[in-house]
């Protein structure tokens, strides 16, 4: 078993996600401390929060736009969850999600019940993105459309300067029965160093 590796990082200047190379004039220096850490009970940390499973509008209508409470997602399950700034953006589409798609068998071999991707997008955008990336059979997508899930974990990140609005950090975690066992947060949302599938596989 890999030893517990917890990376707590400080936030430095935000690098833009856009491929056009926008530069943000004012660097945001803020001592970054996520509220979530190893040992946090995710369900308890976000009591009134629920996520919306990525779905098409019609599916939403037929399910009466039901939301999924965190309990259903985490209780008594081994879950690998990763969060990213935005659907259809560069690193998210080309590196982050594919890394989990490619490792899905290894996750199953480690008896991981579900691999979940969460982003501050609405469920329809996430659904369309998941279909485009052809990963719906491997990864479950949930929309944190108002950012409340990420806020309650202290993982929200304002990317308004990159014209994305309030989003989240790039992060990954291994959660067993609702309790965070391993947590990896990138220093910059545009980095892809510690939040990939291989890294968390090593930790499990």
């Amino acid at each position, binding site marked *: 078993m890999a030893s517990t590796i917890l990376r707590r990082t400080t936030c430095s200047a935000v690098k833009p996600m856009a491929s056009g190379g926008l530069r943000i004039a004012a660097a945001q220096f803020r001592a970054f401390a996520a509220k979530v850490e190893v040992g946090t009970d995710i369900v308890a940390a976000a009591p009134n929060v629920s996520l919306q499973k990525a779905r098409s509008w019609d599916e939403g209508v037929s399910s009466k*736009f039901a939301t999924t409470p965190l309990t259903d997602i985490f209780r008594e399950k081994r879950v690998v969850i990763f969060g990213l700034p935005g659907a259809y953006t560069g690193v998210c589409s080309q590196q982050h999600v594919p890394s989990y798609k490619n490792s899905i068998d290894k996750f199953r071999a480690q008896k991981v019940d579900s691999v979940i991707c969460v982003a501050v997008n609405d469920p329809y955008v996430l659904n369309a993105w998941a279909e485009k990336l052809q990963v719906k059979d491997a990864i479950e997508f949930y929309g944190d459309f108002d950012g409340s899930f990420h806020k309650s974990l202290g993982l929200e990140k304002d990317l308004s300067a990159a014209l994305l609005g309030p989003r989240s950090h790039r992060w990954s975690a291994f959660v067993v029965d609702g309790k965070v066992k391993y947590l990896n947060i990138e220093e910059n949302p545009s980095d892809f160093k510690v939040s990939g599938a291989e890294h968390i596989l090593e930790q499990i």
Partner: protein
Amino acid sequence: MAASLSISRLLSSTTSLSLSARTSASLFPTAKTLSSKPYFTSLPLKLHNSHPKPLKLSTTTTPKSTISAAIAVGDKLPDTTLSYFDTAGELQTTTISDLTKNKKAILFAVPGAFTPTCSQKHLPGFVDKSKELKAKGVDTIACISVNDAFVMKAWKENLNINDEVLLLSDGNGDFTRAIGCELDLSDKPVGLGVRSRRYALLAEDGIVKVLNLEEGGAFTFSGAEDILKAL
């Protein structure tokens, strides 16, 4: 400073000044008295601002939760920045001024990319009618949504749109807020947050000539055919 001002200079100011002037050498300029012409009367003369501001300010900050919009026919569109990805895949920004100055522009807004009415009726309607609209002298047709530019690009590709309609991102909702057309769906279970009301407008040189603004996301008269009729 008062001594250097000549009598013939007209100073415009926003406050009204009462003036009295004497042509005699015993002119007693006080700190703020000025005159444009030598008046022999001591009647107070009110000066009004010679450059009247446009009727509606573009920076309305009062939140509107009723049907009344801040923007109306005759208003000048606020100059806000929108973003998009160009054909080379580079993130670009454009301003309302660029889109509308000295041009006939149609701007229409949808609550959300990848949602049914937007994807199946509103946007395709404008794509289909784009040639007819352009034949009637429309220079720019743009679809605006409170989605980020990445999503707008993906949606454009998803619907196989080329250059018939520009898909522009009002990512932070600045333009939508500035024209008072926000649609707050945060308390609804649909998961969309604050978006834009559905509308279609025709602007000539940045002034709104036609405005078809729906109450929310309904699709009754904000389509391409309706605006085509107005041209």
